[in-house]
């Protein structure tokens, strides 16, 4: 286990200026290439020598992957757009405030200035065993160190674990899933669109990856359809500190009403599993019901069905129940009176 910290290892650095150049490089170097946007996920891996790519493709000079455009009543957001740009964008805040709020709660102001939306949704898990270079399932080994009787797993999964109990640490991912966003993925074979809900994958699909992005592929943009523009949103992030923490859990919801009842709704929770979980059962249960404590309580109970605690993360079950409850109640329970 390498303990050499804070010194950058040697690698070949490419700074392509276009998407096609970047894709050509990724195609040429395949799994030897590391894609770097803001560097917020990359630097720890590289400095700790846990990941040792021979090639780093830095996206900072690539034209056409940064910025927010209105498109067909929705938005297209370049993958290299910073989280600060998204959190402060009037366009995003006006109609897709859910995403602006989620982006504004990521990490710290300094990290949001540097970190990108593409990086935030594509970052690797923060499981500290895996991040320390332990040879676990996710790292190609045959054990999960976080799921043992003595493991320290306060921040690990309560749902959908499959050998690996790591969670997805993104705040923007659940907001994008709730907004029915689509991910634009470019490779030498051309462009493909993947629904945000399908972009994130659990260990049952591929235990070594958090997303569908394969070697040679590049996330270039995120499209948000008009569907949920101007809907009622709820986002809440539970964390230990008031800044600079990954979520212990977060919840993102978008809802439309007909009269007093829910007409349609999306409810998504992250940091409960290896991918953001869209709570289809909750959505189905609340549609047609009024927004009140009873519906909220029901939603909270449904949300946690099947949840299984590890040694130290049992709190996530009532926390998830209450966050979902609050999302349905929509009472801004997460804001503070003073």
């Amino acid at each position, binding site marked *: 286990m390498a303990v050499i910290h804070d010194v950058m290892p040697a690698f070949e650095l490419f700074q392509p200026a276009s998407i096609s150049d970047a894709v050509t490089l990724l195609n040429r170097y395949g799994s030897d290439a590391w894609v770097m946007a803001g560097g917020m996920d990359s630097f720890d891996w590289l400095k700790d020598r846990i990941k040792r790519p021979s090639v780093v493709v830095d996206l900072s000079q690539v034209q056409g992957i940064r910025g927010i455009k209105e498109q067909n009543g929705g938005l297209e957001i370049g993958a290299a757009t910073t989280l600060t740009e998204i959190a402060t964008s009037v366009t995003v805040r006006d109609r897709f405030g859910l995403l602006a709020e989620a982006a504004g709660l990521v990490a710290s102001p300094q990290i949001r200035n540097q970190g990108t939306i593409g990086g935030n949704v594509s970052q690797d898990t923060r499981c*500290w065993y895996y991040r320390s270079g332990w040879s676990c399932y996710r790292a190609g080994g045959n054990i999960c160190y976080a799921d043992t009787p*003595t493991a*320290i797993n306060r921040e690990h999964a309560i749902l959908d674990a499959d050998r690996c109990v790591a969670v997805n640490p993104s705040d923007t991912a659940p907001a994008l899933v709730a907004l029915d966003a689509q991910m634009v993925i470019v490779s030498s074979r051309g462009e493909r669109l993947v629904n945000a809900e399908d972009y994130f994958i659990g260990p049952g699909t591929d235990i070594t990856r958090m997303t569908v992005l394969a070697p040679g592929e590049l996330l270039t943009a995120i499209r948000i359809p008009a569907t949920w523009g101007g809907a009622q949103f709820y986002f809440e992030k539970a964390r230990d*500190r*008031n800044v600079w923490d990954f979520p212990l859990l977060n919840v993102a919801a978008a809802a439309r009403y007909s009269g007093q009842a829910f007409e349609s709704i999306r409810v998504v929770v992250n940091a409960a599993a290896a991918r953001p979980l869209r709570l289809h059962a909750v959505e189905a249960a609340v549609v047609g019901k009024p927004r009140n404590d009873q519906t909220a309580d029901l939603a909270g109970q449904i949300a946690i069905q099947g949840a299984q605690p590890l040694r130290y993360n049992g*709190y996530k079950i009532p926390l998830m129940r*209450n966050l979902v409850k609050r999302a349905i109640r929509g009472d801004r*329970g997460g804001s503070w009176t*003073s």
Partner: protein
Amino acid sequence: MKVGFSKEGRILALDMMSVSDNGPFERQGDCNNTGVISSLMYQPEAMRFRGISVLTNTPPRGPQSQPGGTQAHMLMEPVISKAARKLGIDQVQIRRINAPVGKAPFGPPAGPKAQRQYVTSAFAKEALDKGAEIFKWEDRKAASGKRNGSKVRGVGVAVSTYSAGSVGFDGLLVIKPDGRLYIQSGIGNHGTESVSDCHRVSAELLGMPWDKVEIAWGDTSKNLPWTCPSGGSQTIHAMTRAAHAAGMDAVKKLQAIAAKDLGGSPENYEVANERVFRKGGGPGMTFAKAAQRAIELGGAFDGHELPKDINKFTKTSATALAGQGLMGVAKDNYPHDGQSRSFVAGFAEVEIDVETGKYHILDYLAVADVGTVIHPRAVGGQILGRSMLGIGHAIGQKWVYDQHYGVALAKRFYQNRPPTILDTPEKMQWATVDLPDPETPVGARGIGEPPVGAGACAVLNAISDALGDEIYRRAPVTLDMILTALEAGRPMAEPLTAHI
């Protein structure tokens, strides 16, 4: 730990056993200090203490601040709060009842006469009283525990103490014929400003305007005197004493030169306004002139003869400076009956969201008994800075290692979670009692470490005040502990697993 209280809240007996997870290498002293600090701060009428330090196959560690003291308060304070609730006694009052007063004893009996150590002075009650007034304790207490939606507020008070000064270091200064005062400062500059603050004592004794004082510091090649290390909360106490000694030595030499040149005896002269002159008016001379005369007279006046008791280090520095003017050089030989300790009373108000367990600190006040205040802004910075260090221990700062493999897991700041600027209380205030310590000429005691425990425990006690005693058995108290305890109606976190 077992604590027996009288109906009035007085601690009659304390039985404490402290087991320290020492790590793999050098011995840590925290374990014994938990007993010593508990015996001082809470003055139990009878006490048994047992301490064991266990070598463990875990990552190496070292003390951070207030070693042993922070742990003592974090063990004792929640128990005292619980006792106050059970006895129906106000939280400020129960700490007042048990607070040390005057030359309060502490630690075990030792030596052939089985005597206990005692402090130089203690004004902990005064700190509690002043804090209760500024914080409007009675008003806030009445509002504590009331629900507002999913939020509930609580108020907490806690006391804390730690070492606050050493003795026996040297002061060194020279008044040169240019009429300026050159002070040699061996104090390490950690940003607390004690590197210069301590020497205001010499300038004040000599009546020298501060803008005519030059301070040499920062490097042992600059002929600096033997000085305490910048640690252990000792500097302001130790080095104001040394500065006083050097300043008084210079005053005596000024008086002696005036008497020699202008007649009469040294006691007939006083110093002020950059002059030494006859009391009640009469002849005198400027410091510039006296410095010139010191060089002409030589001997002890300009540093060619030095006191026998100064440290070798000071002797070398003074010898290098000899012949440049009138030298003040002396060891701190002032009496010092007792051990110097400072005291802090901390007050906190928190708001807890019972649906998530997350809480915010709305307000924090620390009132410190630090003796005479030398530099208000610097002491305020120390009080709140170290309070925040303690608050970090209460709210989330942790270190985590895998208990099976003994390997550190929380290696980065986003994992071990020291408090950030946004975790500071929304309001933070400080105040001092400002009563001089009688066992040091300037009256000032140190304040580096004493605030830590009060910061940590005022917050912990506020949580219990809002939610009851069945929430936590260890710190940091994070939202998961609060939420699971509220769900289960009893503490759910393992008491002996400190950090997860």
